């Protein structure tokens, strides 16, 4: 069979497209199929990278993932469910990383070699990271001060914590 587009090369790509119940068949050579872009892209999609990734995400029974995720696991900011994430291999928003944190470790171990970022830190976020660490330290000190009944020191620490928290809210 010859390619129905260029009529010059043998047809090597055959597929059926169904849109709204209407069925059309295509017989094209590889080049015309690629030129037809949209049609071919759909046919090729089954083998593309996203599908491989979602295949990895669906390997729930494999070692490293202990139990299936709860059916209602979803991101509380964008509403993406974990199930949808495994189908598409894409997160819905930055917050998904927190929402799905419990499932993320084994996944990142599979596709990335190491789970801890060591590269560049944005200046603005870098400042916040530092402040958060200070806040965590002050909170521990506050607990220790209360336990030791050093209430004056505790009041000072409380005020420092409050003003830092206010900065965060802004």
């Amino acid at each position, binding site marked *: 069979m010859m390619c129905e587009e260029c009529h010059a090369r043998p047809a090597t790509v055959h597929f059926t497209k169904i849109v709204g119940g209407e069925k059309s068949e295509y017989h094209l050579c590889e080049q015309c199929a690629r030129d037809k872009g949209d049609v071919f892209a759909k046919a*090729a999609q089954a083998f*593309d990278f996203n599908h491989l990734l979602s295949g990895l995400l669906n390997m729930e029974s494999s070692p490293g993932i202990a139990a299936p995720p709860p059916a209602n696991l979803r991101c509380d900011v964008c509403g993406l469910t974990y199930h949808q994430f495994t189908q598409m291999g894409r997160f819905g928003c930055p917050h998904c990383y927190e929402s799905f944190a419990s499932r993320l470790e084994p996944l990142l171990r599979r596709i990335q070699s*190491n789970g801890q970022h060591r590269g560049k830190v944005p200046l603005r976020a870098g400042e916040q990271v530092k402040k958060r660490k200070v806040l965590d330290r002050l909170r521990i000190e506050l607990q220790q001060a209360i336990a030791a009944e050093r209430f004056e020191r505790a009041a000072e620490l409380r005020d420092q914590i409050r003003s830092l928290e206010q900065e965060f809210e802004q």
Partner: protein
Amino acid sequence: MSLSDFLQRAMSKWMRDGGPNDDIALTSRIRIARNITDVPFPMLQTDSHADAVIDRVRRALASPDVRRFGNFELVRCSELSALDRQVLVEKHLISKDLADEVKHGAVALRDDEVVNLMINEEDHIRIQCIMPGLRLEEAWQLANELDDALEKHIPYAFHDRYGYLTACPTNVGTGIRASVMMHLPGLVLSGQINRMLSAVSQVGLTVRGMYGEGSESAGNLFQVSNQVTLGETEEEIIGNLSSIVNQLMDHERAARRMLLQENREGLEDRVCRSFGILAYARKMDSKETLQRLSDVRLGIDLGIIKGVSAGILKELMVMTQPAFLQKYYNQELSPATRDSRRATLIRERLRLDDTEVQ
């Protein structure tokens, strides 16, 4: 317009310029994925989210911090014709996915096309920097500085542990993808390529055909890039890739020398046959074009063909693709017509040089 005028306008300046080691490492590219905190990733975007992202980038580009990087023109994909979007894809300035993202996508191009931004593709922002030859460090430096300037105006989604947050977990961390496009006919002809490529994949790099994920290698062109984005610093990622690319170049040069020594006649025959076909054929499909151009470029590098500029491979690789052909002939062309116009264009291009075959 004459072909030489068209070439002057169609080719980015960086494509015409040479670069270090560009006989084998044709181009170096750095891509950085960044997202805005508190905005859904493009996959879940509403129209207003998409507009907000484009607007933030537009404002950042107008700031003095970013303007010192040059003049960027921001265009929404919807404002470009399908053909113009395809031309940008063929120039490797935007991805096919962005060209298809007509509703929400946008691109910010710097005049010289060395650096640009893809907006609302898979991530909110992707900074891309392409330079000729093996210049990964330089490309990273430019992309990194532009990233810093944008970050002053755009709050990036960042996590202490996971680094820069991206729509796909394969980009999280540094968000950096560094790649080098390599022309490796010596390794292919001497049958060493598969061994080399499997060795490369064992050190955390990936190799693909020149048209990105899933595409086969055409014209002996291979794109080598980092696979891992989390757990290594940007400098480690780039250093690792550079060192492997340097080793591949050494092997390629050794393979070329060996082919010349052991079978000069066979090699010359192959190169000259391909040159003859390019110079006289009346119909050329894209795949054969790339293969023949690869042979001719090898012939130029080895001194078998003289008088043809070495840039011809890069030039014709871009020029003979479907959208460029239609742009040059200024009309829509069926695939069959394209094959004959492609052959005509190649013959014209070869006549621009004063060729001499040894």
